[in-house]
């Protein structure tokens, strides 16, 4: 292991610690949640690193929530690319306050190990990105709360809507988008606004928009 990656992993460890501290400090009490908070649906989650959490505990900051499955050949790699493009289009200061939560619709196969393998394969190392699963029944409830449709097709594949939902720190829906690829301008504007509203110090870092960010990692199409 060279010095650089050691430094990276230290930094990532530190970042994790900060995220955890942040979580502990900001978990909203369920009773105090706004009536329209999606955190009223609050199942236990199991993250890619095996960490146990709950849906409500992922709050405390603005986040994009979406659903996917690890073995998905088509839409899911694109969802990850789209989230990356959105992330890159944000000013660095704002970006650091944005959480990205990817919930599996295939919890039977998407074990923490499988989610972790996907994170490694897709180089998802930023601790702001959380890949997690819930029980099959809770997964249905999370999708219902998020307005995401999915159906197991019986051959291991799923039909599902590729919706990204922007939540405020208390779990209220601010915006949603199903546009894959180049970031949806309206959705991006809503994210910027939310990050600005959550912290007035979110400006001045300079916009690091990168245009050609699509990694075109689409695997072979599925047989139907």
């Amino acid at each position, binding site marked *: 292991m060279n010095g650089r990656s050691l430094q990276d992993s230290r930094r990532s460890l530190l970042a994790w610690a900060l995220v955890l501290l942040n979580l502990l400090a900001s978990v909203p009490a369920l009773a105090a949640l706004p009536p*329209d908070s999606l955190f*009223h649906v609050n199942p236990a989650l199991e993250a890619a690193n095996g960490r146990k959490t709950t849906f409500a505990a992922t709050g405390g900051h603005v986040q994009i929530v979406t659903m996917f499955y690890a073995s998905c050949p088509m839409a899911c790699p694109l969802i990850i690319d789209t989230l990356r493009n959105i992330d890159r289009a944000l000013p660095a200061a704002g970006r650091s306050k944005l959480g990205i939560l990817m919930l599996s619709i295939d919890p039977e196969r998407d074990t923490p190990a499988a989610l972790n393998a996907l994170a490694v394969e897709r180089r998802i190392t930023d601790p702001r990105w959380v890949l997690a699963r819930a029980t099959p029944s809770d997964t249905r409830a999370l999708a219902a709360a998020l307005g995401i*449709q*999915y*159906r197991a097709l*019986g*051959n291991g594949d799923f039909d599902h809507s*590729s919706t990204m939902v922007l939540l405020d720190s208390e779990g209220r829906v601010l915006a949603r988008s*199903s546009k*894959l690829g180049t970031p949806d301008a309206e959705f991006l504007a809503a994210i910027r606004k939310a990050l600005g509203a959550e912290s007035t110090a979110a400006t001045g870092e300079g916009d690091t928009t990168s245009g050609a960010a699509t990694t075109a990692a689409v695997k072979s199409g599925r047989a139907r």
Partner: protein
Amino acid sequence: LPRLIATVVMALAFAGGAGGAEPLHSAGAARIPGGEWRSVLPTGTKEPSVRVEPFLLDRTSVTNAQFLAFVRRNERWRRGNAPAALADSGYLKQWRGPVDLGPVALPDQPVTGVSWFAARAYCEARHARLPSWYEWELAAAADETTQDARRQPAWQQRLLGWYSKPSNRALANVGAEPGNLYGVHDLHSLVWEWVDDFNALMVSGDSRERGDPDQLKFCGSGAMAFQNPDEYAVAMRIALLSSLQARSTTANLGFRCAQDDEEQHR
């Protein structure tokens, strides 16, 4: 025999633990044999049918009286307490008060004005669940004498006949219509009913594969995707269910509970 004892013990425990909400196997639920099922929904695979495991299903829709007993024990699910994220403003609106049916909502009428979240919570309190769409569709395909009456004009007429009735009429009590082959009542004649996977019915495939993912959410183009376009009556139900949000309530939407049939599974 040990299994039987275990079942009885569990039944007693559930009946006590859920505070009077009877689990299905002790409440005389109908036993529906599973099998290969040809749904009106496209399977999305090369197989024309899906496998449905044996299951138990409430013989009637959950009534106002039954749901009242549930909210009495579960304060969180009383009108006024259930958060807007889990039930919209129409939640139990036809009742006089949070724990009072009043003169309009009769005890043996099906409970309506319940969201998917509320319906699910009720079934979970009975250690049960909502039926899946395939389960509901399979049970509802039977008439009094045959398992799959969907091709019979009389069965189709019954469904369409109900749709054409004005929906502002007072609801009948549950169980007024004769039961079908399995002894299940009112699947087509009383209220719309939630299914557990209501948010799985109208999805398009991969967004890139079939063009605009929103396209199939519309009834017209969605209906094109059904396996048998002549089964329009069932397609209407799918169209309604898939237009709902999990927090939605309507005056004509109720539910019943289901459970895996453990004895048939083993």
